[in-house]
């Protein structure tokens, strides 16, 4: 609270120097007061020093002080500082005020690497998680950079690339954990980012890494500042920009990976600390390098003290709490951030156009073929078989609802994708990043946390409520700022992060209903009933009827606001109508297929790559492609590891992520 008020006064007055100490000092002061009051209860003051220098461990108070309390305090400061520094480096090097280990995919990489190691090569973890985390974080960050390198690391491409890599990796993690549930308890706990310590080993292990990172970072200050001054001229000044950037990024990746290895994923500290210090007046990189780690440390310290006094049965892990606090903070900050305008690469000119109609008819035939396949072909305990008409009689009630909901969700997501991509003029946009899926997920997760039992209608209502709330959050912000596309997308990132924090709480609680939650989060059609299929089908049909009516707007909007005004289009009104359409179809499909799946991203793209440029043909082609994609994903998910099942949304994400990677690479 204090922090937010501070940032407001900051930007208004734009003075400097005294604000930074205040920004760091106030959370630190509160944290210190809480720490001292806890400590007074734990141990009389005369032992405070003696229990460090010469502890008597037969006294449980001294034991707790020396091996739990102090290490935890140290870890909160060390990890906070490491994240603050990593975030500063990322933001500076990538020229991206929103870059941080979570948004650029480093954490997801570290996380999936640790998941793989825990389940399949636990011996790698016997002496610590650092190297596994560093390897994973490095690989995922490289992938994100490879994705974004095409356009000089444009901020939005980095963030979208990071989001895609994160989603792909976390869907892979989710599946691995769902398939090995009892073996994954360790991962659930670790993922949620708890700072609880079991001795001083982690704190001591982390210290040299942090010191080395800090030293390297400060050596980089000058080269980085030179880069900042004159990117083009830098090399002529005898500076190697690529080398400087790479070194800085390596340092930042290592810092975030070791923090992740030590305590799990701590969201948003790495984002908030540098951004807040900048807003509080730290103009130079040198200032930010000093103040951001300090602020990171003080914020995490405060968070970790606060979660310990909250009245919950199980303590909420600090990493989860930072996500809950940080995501709204990000939403508040978005209007204040200046995001360099980027060119909407008009992809349409690159591809040849097609005469749409015959191709779409052919597409319908293909759809029909796959419909037959997914309904009739299957496996049982004796092997593969093609269902006879008798068998179909009893198999159809099981298979048809799943096929229909997958098809409907695919069509709805594809439509939402076309609408949002055309509306924002951003070919990298997708309903998955709008935050509606995240909002729906959040609603269902909160239902899980607050209710002992739940039913399907309750789940539906909770999801719908979540979707609407996130829509209401987005809409006014967009209204004020003329619906700036970047802000819209990034608010989606914030909502998605909150949803994943909520899921981390449920997962870490060890609730035996986990299985069903994991299934839904990863996009399973397992629970689809005939009623679901009918409802999904009706919504899809309505959408298919309405969406083409917006075709004219969709042709004009990508040309820009001026063009829209020129032809008498009230841009805001039109955009809000489109937003509602997008939200409705995204919410409906999220309830079916979970918040994951890149169909909304992939289908519109593929449609355009195939040559369907104009709004109407693109809608039709994307709808066909999206429907076929999810239908096939659902079928393959039922077949591949029979009798176990891979959720359709997850399979689509696992295929779609790499597809998107290739797409981003080839479309320079």
């Amino acid at each position, binding site marked *: 609270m204090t922090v937010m008020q501070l940032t407001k006064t900051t930007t208004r007055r734009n003075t400097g120097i005294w604000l930074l100490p205040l920004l760091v000092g106030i959370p630190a002061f509160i944290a210190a007061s809480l720490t001292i009051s806890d400590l007074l209860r734990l141990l009389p003051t005369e032992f405070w020093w003696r229990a460090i220098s010469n502890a008597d*461990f*037969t006294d*449980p108070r001294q*034991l*707790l002080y020396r*091996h*739990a309390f102090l*290490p935890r305090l140290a870890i909160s400061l060390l990890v906070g500082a490491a994240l603050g520094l990593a975030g500063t480096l990322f933001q500076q090097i990538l020229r991206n005020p929103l870059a941080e280990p979570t948004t650029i995919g480093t954490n997801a990489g570290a996380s999936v690497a640790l998941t793989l190691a*825990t389940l399949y090569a*636990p*011996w790698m*973890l*016997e002496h610590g998680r650092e190297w596994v985390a560093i390897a994973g974080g490095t690989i995922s960050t490289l992938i994100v950079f490879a994705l974004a390198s095409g356009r000089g690391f444009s901020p939005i491409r980095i963030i979208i690339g990071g989001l895609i890599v994160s989603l792909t990796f976390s869907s892979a993690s989710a599946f691995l954990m*769902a*398939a090995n*549930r*009892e*073996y994954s*308890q*360790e991962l659930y*706990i*670790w993922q949620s980012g*708890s700072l*609880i*310590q*079991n*001795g*001083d*080993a982690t704190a001591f292990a982390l210290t040299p890494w942090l010191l080395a990172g800090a030293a390297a970072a400060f050596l980089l200050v000058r080269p980085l500042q030179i880069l900042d001054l004159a990117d083009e001229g830098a090399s002529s000044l005898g500076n190697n920009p690529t080398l400087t950037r790479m070194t800085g990024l390596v340092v930042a990746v290592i810092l975030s990976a070791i923090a992740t290895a030590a305590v799990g994923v701590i969201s948003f500290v790495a984002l908030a600390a540098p951004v807040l210090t900048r807003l509080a007046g730290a103009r130079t990189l040198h200032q930010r390098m000093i103040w951001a780690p300090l602020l990171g440390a003080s914020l995490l310290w405060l968070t970790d003290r606060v979660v310990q006094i909250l009245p919950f*049965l*199980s*303590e909420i892990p600090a990493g989860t709490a930072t996500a809950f606090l940080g995501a709204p903070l990000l939403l508040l900050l978005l209007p204040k951030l200046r995001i360099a305008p980027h060119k909407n690469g008009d992809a349409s000119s690159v591809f040849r156009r097609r005469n749409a109609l015959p191709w779409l008819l052919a597409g319908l035939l293909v759809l029909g073929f796959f419909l037959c396949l997914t309904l009739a072909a299957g496996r*049982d*305990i004796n092997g593969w078989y093609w269902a006879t008409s008798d068998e179909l009689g*009893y*198999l159809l009630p*099981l298979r048809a609802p799943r096929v229909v909901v997958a098809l409907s969700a695919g069509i709805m997501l594809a439509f939402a994708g076309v609408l949002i991509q055309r509306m924002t003029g951003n070919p990298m946009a997708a309903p998955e990043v709008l935050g509606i899926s995240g909002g729906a997920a959040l609603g269902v997760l909160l239902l899980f946390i607050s209710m*002992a*039992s*739940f039913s*399907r209608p309750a789940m539906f209502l909770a999801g719908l409520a979540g979707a609407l709330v996130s829509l209401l959050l987005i809409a006014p912000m967009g209204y004020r700022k003329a619906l700036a596309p970047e802000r819209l997308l990034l608010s989606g990132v914030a909502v998605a992060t909150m949803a994943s924090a909520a899921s981390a709480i449920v997962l*870490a*609680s*060890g*609730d*035996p*209903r*986990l*299985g*069903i939650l*994991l*299934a839904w989060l990863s996009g*399973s059609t*397992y*629970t689809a*009933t005939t009623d679901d299929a009918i409802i999904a089908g009706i919504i899809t049909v309505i959408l298919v009827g309405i969406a083409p009516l917006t075709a004219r707007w969709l042709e004009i909007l990508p040309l820009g606001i001026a063009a829209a005004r020129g032809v008498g289009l009230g841009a805001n009104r039109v955009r809000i109508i489109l937003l509602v359409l997008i939200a409705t179809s995204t919410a409906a499909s999220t309830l079916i297929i979970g918040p994951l799946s890149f169909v909304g991203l992939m289908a519109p793209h593929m449609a355009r790559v195939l040559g369907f440029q104009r709004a109407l043909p693109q809608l039709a082609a994307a709808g066909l492609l999206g429907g076929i994609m999810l239908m096939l994903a659902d079928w393959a998910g*039922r077949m591949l590891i029979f*009798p*176990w*099942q891979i959720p359709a949304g997850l399979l689509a994400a696992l295929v779609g992520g790499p597809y998107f990677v290739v797409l981003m690479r080839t479309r320079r």
Partner: protein
Amino acid sequence: MLVAQIPVARAANMPRVACLEWASAELVVSLGIQPVAVADLKGYRDWVVAPRLSDDCLDLGSRGEPNLEVLLKLNPDMIVSAHGYGLEGGPFAKIAPLHTVALYDGTGGTPYGQAESETLRLAERLGRETQAHEVIESTAATISRTKKMLADQGGSPLAVVSMFDDRHVRVYGRSSLFQDVLDRLGLINAWTGETGSWGFSTMGIEELVAIGNARLISLDPIPPHVKIRIEQSTLWKSLPCVRAGNVTTIPPVWPFGGLAAAARFATLLAQT
């Protein structure tokens, strides 16, 4: 091939039962019926262990999503599920009569008492009342026998935990099956803190200070790398119960199981 492997026991009008999770499988096996299929079969063998499932038992897939097509083809006489796993009954009830075992259903019954009544209720559905009474009596007998054995050892307080990572433990307390068994054994649970509706709480390892040098019973399976890292932990090494050498690891027992789990827990405690 499958038919050929089915043991003789099943031939004699044995109902063909499929189980959607592990507690119901435990109950069914303890009534002398080998289920034709159980969800997450490998998991059952690792985490529940006993009573043993026959080798020809089929896997139904995950407990979150038991494979409906396999169930349909198996055409069992009954499908048994358990409360609280979030599965909707509808699709299963269409395939075969569905029985839901109501353990940990929040109705306030103690897990042990519920395990007894649920064993009886399931037995009535399966026509195995005799076996049910045998199970109830033999479990009670095992527990009272164990109580006598433990009485000689003095019955110092103990805490029961599962360890999944090196910083946290899941400790079992009020409204857990283990608590009921400890009560019946006349043993005191050294952990008296709050627990959730499933009778456990996940907490930092340092909170084990609260149990002093009481015995710490830790349930297998503990992942080997977790074990190594716990033993390296300076906090763990200095915990009163660890310094006193009072830590015992016992083989896996399913904490959310029924009478067989209760008897197994008591027996394993006596063997420590």
